[in-house]
Each structure stands twice: as structure tokens, then as C-alpha cells.
């Protein structure tokens, strides 16, 4: 495999605007087609030219609306194109997330970059290849069956000197071709690039300080800005004492209604001015008491009910069952906790805006910026640059709108970087989630009816969360909330004969919601997979065997067995009752078919529980994973490791805190996350199915840790944890309620 080095090049193109692309080829400048043809580069999803351009120097630029948020798509997507187009990987240059140059493939979310974005790119490459072969048939006078391709050269198999290259056929010219959904793909048995653990091109730069992050990006004449948020979420600005910062060189106040910021030529001056500025705000105490969150959720008005599944008659089945069970599971509000706070640069001039943003949604963010700037979205160009990992909609979009508004108000290019308390305090949150499940078991312990209810905020999935800039500046915006598709996986991944699952969509939720990695699917799987474990325990059956009673899907069964084998799962019912002493060990299982439509995974958590302190340590976590065709196995492994570790953190430690006015967990001391000594060893087995479609990898495995850990704690000490996070205090309290069963 060719060694790939990283270069990040900045160059001038067409309009004279600065473009940053990512090149897999050191020392070569990308040549956008627009430069040579003078035509605007197409970005429509049905055009090959939107995705690919072959250049005279033999390089190929690929354009994608999907951005690499640290997940490795920057190598996986080129692998898919290199494979289908039969070109060397190091000939590919990649342009990501530029609204002027890349097709809108939807935001980078939902574990869909490969599954949708990559598949679109691959089909464009297959279409291009088909056309190039037809051109070569004409040129070489041989039927396509007698031709072969290697490294962008088509040749007669029997007479390799009769050849024509892609450069000769199409170099620096457009394909003018619609993507053919039937263009044949290569046979996976011939794959040489897809399926290989090719190293990521951006790691050397990230490790040596030469990679350009959003936070490192500057434009000439730029002002640094800091935004000043109120001491209460719903407060309005009353007075600002501009003289309070007059000692700070070049610092000045920018204000529109309750939107308050300071700008300065130096970043530190802006930070100091933001700290020093005296302002008064109205009082506001509109948040519910934190200690009464779940009463608040239950009493919030239901806007509508979404039925996830309704089969048979679960109520009747449960009423007539030999045994019945009912349990409630809650999952705390979480913050994204990106290591670097949000950042963006905006340059607004008249009816145009040039914006650089680490948003997961370069294209869709234009709508929000357009609302804030009160201008046509057509005049807005947004370009992606890497921020810190975002795991969903965090503060990036708000910071981008902040920068745009301040640039408009000052008439200068503006860089906004949030402070830590802004990111923890003001990014939109994963909403509180409550699930209640009832089941009936027959005399053999089999589930005869399953009835579940979910309480989560409603979602207007056509709208984005309100932006802080528009809210505080008094700019009209739609008052919608959108926490993402959080009802998914409410229906359990087992085909029970009688089952119902209803999501009560609430009119409101205490803090502005959005989506955080595996939104809803994590919380719903947690409830389902703990509850089935509770049923297994009541039935006195081994948790893996109990799941196999219901599972009929062979791919599901395969991951389940693979996880159990890997963990040397000991077949016996939980809880084990053979331990004494302060530290008890246990193991717990979890399984999910993501959205009941794609990636299968199963996991085993091994835990140690300190009976006295209630502290849980997850020592080891096994994952068996089937995402269909694997594009880059090392990328898949990195994503699974990350999901497990991040979600162990969320499960054991994380809980947003607030008072009646605002979020109070605004740093890493008040919102602790998992540290190195607490990190489990992650062990995995990947099941590759090269002949199947490639499915998502960035979210599914994150469903596993909350239920697997809860089940492992039950196995260890006979205590059920039904409230995330599983803090030591909750373990101690649950032990007292349950009665310690050793």
C-alpha cells in the first residue's frame, strides 16, 4: 500500500476566495474544474461532475458534503472511489464540506457518511468508469471484455502496450454525465483498496501541530470576538457599562438587543474585555428544579404520540400472564463535551457572507446563518474546517451564527471562539429521556407481551434548534425544537408476538435540545436491554440463552454468539451469588440491531463493583460488530473503541447540572468524564460481509455500554440500576432498597 502523507493546501480559485482542501498527494495543487472550464462547478447529486474531476496531471479531485469529524472518513471515502475508479489512492485529492464546490449529501450525522455519502460517491465513480471504458472501446477498437484497468490506464489485456489513460480521455474536461444508479460495481472479490486498514492522512499533521484546525484559521484584518451570555437563560440585557473595558487596548462592545459581544484585534484583549465588561441583566428562573426533573417530564404536555410498533394485543397478553414485570428507566441530560470549544470565522459584506465553520452540516447551516443575517442563503458560502470532535450538534452552529452577526455589525471579518463555560453551558443538550416497560411472562418464563412508553421532546425534523444569536438579538426565527430521531430503537430488536411501543412527544423540554451521538437509540436500547435482562433473571435463565429464545435474524444471532464466545461467557442465570468481600465482579450482555434496520452489534461488559463505596469500574468491554461490507477495518475499530469509551463515560459519570436560572456544570470539574485509569480495555471482533452494503459504524456500538454495564452490576451484586449515570451514590441507595444480595 502506498504511503500517504498529509498536506493541507490553501490556494486561490475562481472567485479569488480562499479555499482549503485536503490533499492525499503531497506537492500537488488541486485544480477545481471550475478553474479550467470557467463554468460553475456542478453540485447536484445526480451529476458525476459534482463528485469527481480528473485532471491532466493524473490526479482526481473528489468532492463530498460529508466531513471528517475525526472518524476517518477522510481515508475511507477515497478508498471507495479509488477502488471503483481503479486509480491509486495517492492520486486522490479530497474537498469536504464547501457549499460552493461539494454536493449536499446531508449533514454528517446518523452514522451515514459511508452508508449514504460513500455509496453516492462510489456510484458516481462507477458511472465515470463505465463511461471511460466506453470511450476506450472506441479509441482502442476492442470490446470492453478484452480491456483491463490499472492506476487510471485502460489497456488491452492481451496487448498491454495498447493503452489509453483517463488523462487522455477526460483530463481537465467535464463528464457531463448523470449518475447511473445501475452502473455496475466491481466484484468485491477483486477489491484491493476497500477492506484494507489504510492509515489516515491527517494523523501525522495532528500529531506534529501542522494540521490546520478551525481554531488555527485566520483571515487578514480579522477581529477576535467573545460573546457574553446572560447569567440566566431567559434574561434580557438591561445596561452595559462600556467604560468598564476602556483600559483594554482596542476592545469595544458590540450589541444588538440582548446579544452582547466584545471585539478586539488581539484575542487575549477580547477575552479580558469579556471578563471585565460590566452589564446588568433581568432576573429569570424558568428552569424546573433539577431534583424534580422526572416529575417535570411526566407532567409536560404531550404534543402527540408516535407508535413505533403495535403488534398483537400486549395488554391482554400481560393481563393473562403468569408473571408480570414493570420498570422505569431514566437517562440524564448530557452535554457534547467537545475538547475544544466552538469556533468560526465570518466575513459578511453586503449580501454575501464567507464563512468557515467546523459544523457537521456545512450546507444546511446556511439556512440558519441566513435567518441571523436576514439575507438570502444563496449569498452565503460555508467551508468546513476541522474542529474538536463534535458527536452531534454542539456549539459550532451557534458560534458560526455569532461570528456572522458580529461581522455584520462591525463590517469586519470576525473570529469567534467560545470559552469553556460557553460550550458546557450553552451548547444544545441531549434531552432527558424516560422509558417505562411492562411485560408478561408465561409459566416457562417466556415473554408473552411487551408494552413500552417513552417520554421525550417532540421533534420538528425539518427545523434546526433555535440559534442563540437570533434569540438574543431579537431576530425572528421559527420556535421549533429538534432533538433528532430519538424514537428509534424504542421497539426492541426481538420480534415478540404481542408488543407495543409508544413515544409520547412532549411539547417542551427544559434545555434547548439537539442530538448527541446515538441519540435516542442509546437511551431506548438501554431500557430494552436492561428490561429483557430483568425478564431473564425472573425466568432464571442465562441472559444470552434468553435472548436467543426470541432472536430469529441469523446476522443478529451471529454477533450475539461471537460476543459471548469472545468474552468466554459462562452460561448461568444472573445474579451470581458466590462472591463475598468488598469488590464484586460481574458480566452483562447487550444486543442491538441499529434502528432495527442496519448494523448489528452485541457487547459484554465486565465490571468490578465496590459494595461499600458503590463505585463501578468497567474493566473490559467486548464488542462483536457486523456493519456489512467493511471499508477500512482500522477505522471501524477506532470508531468502536471511541464509542465504547465515550459511552462508558456517559453511563458512569455524566449528568448535566443546573439551577433555576442556568446550567451550573460548566467545566470538567463539575461535569467529569472518564479518565485514563478508569478506561476499560476494548476487545472486538468485526464480521466483514464484503458482498453486502456498507452500513454505519459511528453510532451503533454506543448503544451497548449502558445496558451491558447495568446488567453486569446486577450480575455482580444483585442490584438493578435504572438511572443513568450509575453514580456511586445511586449504587449505594439501590443496594439499600434491594437489600444486598451477595
Amino acid at each position, binding site marked *: 500500500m502506498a504511503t500517504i*502523507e498529509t498536506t493541507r493546501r490553501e490556494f486561490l480559485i475562481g472567485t479569488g476566495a480562499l479555499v482549503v482542501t485536503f490533499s492525499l498527494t503531497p506537492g500537488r495543487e488541486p485544480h477545481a474544474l471550475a478553474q479550467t472550464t470557467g463554468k460553475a462547478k456542478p453540485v447536484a447529486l445526480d451529476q458525476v461532475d459534482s463528485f469527481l474531476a480528473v485532471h491532466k496531471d493524473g490526479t482526481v479531485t473528489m468532492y463530498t458534503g460529508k466531513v471528517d*469529524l475525526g472518524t476517518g472518513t477522510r481515508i475511507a471515502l477515497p478508498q471507495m472511489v479509488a477502488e471503483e475508479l481503479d486509480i491509486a489512492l495517492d492520486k486522490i485529492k479530497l474537498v469536504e464540506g464547501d457549499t460552493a464546490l461539494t454536493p449536499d449529501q446531508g449533514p454528517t450525522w446518523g452514522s451515514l457518511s459511508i452508508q449514504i455519502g460513500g455509496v453516492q460517491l462510489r456510484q458516481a465513480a462507477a458511472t465515470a468508469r463505465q463511461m471511460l471504458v466506453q470511450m476506450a472501446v472506441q479509441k482502442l477498437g476492442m470490446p470492453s471484455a478484452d480491456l483491463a484497468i490499472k492506476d487510471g490506464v485502460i489497456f488491452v489485456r492481451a496487448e498491454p502496450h495498447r493503452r489509453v489513460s483517463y488523462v487522455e480521455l477526460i483530463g481537465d474536461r467535464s463528464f457531463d454525465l448523470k449518475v447511473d444508479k445501475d452502473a455496475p460495481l466491481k466484484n468485491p472479490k477483486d477489491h484491493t483498496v476497500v477492506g484494507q486498514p489504510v492509515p489516515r492522512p*491527517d494523523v501525522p499533521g*495532528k500529531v506534529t501541530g*501542522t494540521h490546520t484546525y478551525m481554531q*488555527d484559521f485566520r483571515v487578514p484584518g480579522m477581529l477576535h470576538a467573545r460573546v457574553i451570555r446572560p447569567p440566566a437563560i431567559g434574561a434580557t440585557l438591561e445596561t452595559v457599562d462600556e467604560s468598564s473595558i476602556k483600559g483594554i487596548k482596542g476592545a469595544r462592545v458590540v450589541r444588538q438587543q440582548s446579544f452582547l459581544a466584545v471585539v478586539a484585534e488581539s484575542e487575549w484583549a477580547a477575552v479580558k474585555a469579556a471578563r471585565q465588561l460590566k452589564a446588568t441583566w433581568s432576573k429569570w428562573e424558568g428552569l424546573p428544579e433539577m431534583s424534580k426533573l422526572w416529575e417535570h417530564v411526566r407532567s409536560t404536555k404531550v404534543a402527540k404520540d408516535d407508535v413505533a410498533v403495535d403488534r398483537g394485543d400486549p395488554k391482554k397478553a400481560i393481563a393473562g400472564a403468569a408473571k408480570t414485570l414493570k420498570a422505569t428507566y431514566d437517562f440524564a441530560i448530557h452535554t457534547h463535551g467537545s475538547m475544544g470549544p466552538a469556533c468560526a470565522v465570518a466575513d459578511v459584506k453586503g449580501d454575501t457572507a464567507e464563512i468557515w465553520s467546523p459544523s457537521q452540516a456545512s450546507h444546511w447551516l446556511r439556512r440558519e446563518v441566513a435567518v441571523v443575517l436576514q439575507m438570502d442563503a444563496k449569498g452565503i458560502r460555508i467551508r468546513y474546517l476541522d474542529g474538536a470532535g463534535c458527536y452531534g450538534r454542539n456549539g459550532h452552529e451557534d458560534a458560526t451564527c455569532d461570528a456572522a452577526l458580529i461581522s455584520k455589525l462591525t463590517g469586519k471579518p470576525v473570529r469567534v471562539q467560545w470559552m469553556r463555560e460557553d460550550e458546557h453551558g450553552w451548547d444544545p443538550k441531549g434531552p432527558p429521556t424516560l422509558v417505562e416497560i411492562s411485560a408478561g411472562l408465561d409459566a416457562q418464563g417466556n415473554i408473552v407481551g411487551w408494552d413500552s412508553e417513552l417520554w421525550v421532546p417532540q421533534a420538528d425534523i425539518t427545523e434546526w434548534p433555535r440559534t442563540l444569536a437570533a434569540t438574543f438579538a431579537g431576530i425572528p426565527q421559527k420556535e421549533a425544537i429538534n432533538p433528532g430521531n430519538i424514537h428509534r430503537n424504542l421497539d426492541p430488536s426481538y420480534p415478540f408476538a404481542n408488543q407495543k411501543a409508544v413515544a409520547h412527544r412532549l411539547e417542551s423540554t427544559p434545555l434547548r435540545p439537539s442530538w448527541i451521538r446515538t441519540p435516542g437509540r442509546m437511551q431506548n436500547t438501554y431500557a430494552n436491554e436492561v428490561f429483557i435482562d430483568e425478564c431473564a433473571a425472573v425466568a432464571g435463565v442465562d441472559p444470552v440463552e434468553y435472548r436467543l429464545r426470541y432472536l430469529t435474524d441469523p446476522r443478529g444471532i451471529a454477533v450475539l454468539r461471537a460476543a459471548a464466545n469472545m468474552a468466554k461467557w459462562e452460561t448461568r442465570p444472573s445474579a451470581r451469588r458466590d462472591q463475598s468481600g468488598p469488590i464484586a465482579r460481574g458480566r452483562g450482555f447487550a444486543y442491538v440491531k441499529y434502528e432495527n434496520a442496519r448494523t448489528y452489534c452485541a457487547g459484554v461488559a465486565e465490571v468490578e463493583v465496590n459494595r461499600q463505596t458503590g463505585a463501578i469500574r468497567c474493566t473490559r468491554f467486548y464488542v462483536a460488530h457486523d456493519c456489512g461490507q467493511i471499508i477500512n477495518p482500522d477505522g471501524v475499530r*477506532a470508531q468502536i473503541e471511541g464509542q465504547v*469509551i465515550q459511552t462508558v463515560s456517559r453511563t458512569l459519570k455524566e449528568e448535566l447540572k443546573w439551577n433555576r436560572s442556568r446550567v451550573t456544570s460548566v467545566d470538567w470539574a463539575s461535569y467529569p468524564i472518564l479518565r*485514563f485509569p478508569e478506561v476499560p480495555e*476494548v476487545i472486538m471482533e468485526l464480521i466483514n460481509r464484503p458482498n453486502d452494503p456498507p452500513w454505519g459504524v459511528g453510532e451503533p456500538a454506543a448503544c451497548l455500554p449502558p445496558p451491558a454495564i447495568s446488567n453486569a452490576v446486577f450480575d455482580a451484586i444483585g442490584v438493578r440500576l435504572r438511572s443513568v449515570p450509575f453514580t456511586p451514590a445511586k449504587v449505594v441507595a439501590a443496594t439499600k432498597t434491594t437489600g444486598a444480595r451477595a
Partner: protein
Amino acid sequence: MATLNVNGKPHQVDVEPDTPLLYVLRDNLGLHGPKFGCGLAQCGSCSVLIDGKAVRSCTYAVGKVGPGKIVTLEGLGTPQKPHPVQQAFIEEQAAQCGYCINGMVIQTTAFLAARQSNPSEREIRQALQNNLCRCGTHQRIIAAVKRAAALMGKGA
């Protein structure tokens, strides 16, 4: 006006002495290896070496540095010629978003420089316990530290 020794070269910077070193490195000297993560010395993203010790530059006033020799991530090595610790991180592919990785590399460099022998996994985890990562890259970072120790010829 302060004189700083950064990556082996003297630099004159015109900043107020209370300015945190991080802003001087990033904004005045254009060194983007150290990152702003929290501004509270809690996460480690801003770490630099001063006289071989890992220091949180976000809360370290520039006026305090004096003649101390500052080394940033850029001063350790380059993509073409990485420091053994950087080399190990590349070989283990120990970065996702990579925002915390500056701190991980700097902390590891200081940790390994101060030891003669190969660290145990437990010692590595302890050495990095005040460096936060959100992507969950920990397992690879631990592997990278082990690999770096081997590359640097630390005895068993």
C-alpha cells in the same frame, strides 16, 4: 516586551505580562500545536514543555517564563521527521479529532524523558490521568506510549 526561548530560538514579543503563554504562542508566534481547550488547566490540550516539564500554557502567564526553554509540539518534530513519541502516535493511529493529542504527546514526552525504564500500563494511565480525551482514543494512546518507550530504547 518579553523575550521567549521557543523551540530553540529567541523571540521578542510585545505582550502584557499577564497574558497566558498559550495566546502568545498561538497568536503572536503562530504555533498552533498547543490548543485552547478549557483555559482552566483541567484538560491538558494547551500543554507545552518548559525546561522539559509539561506545563499548562493556558494559565501560565508569559511573564513567569523568564529564561525557561519552551518546546511546543512543532518543536518536537515534523511529519517528515517526527519525534519518537510522535512517530509512535502515528504508527498506532492514536488520534481521532486530534484536539487533545498535543497534550498527550507533550505529557508523554515529559513522562518518558524522566524515566529510565519501560513504564507499566498502570504507570502510563497514571501519568496521563489529568489529560482528557472525548473521542475515546485512550486505548490507542496507551499503546502509543508503550511503543514510544520501545522506540526510545527504555529498558524493561
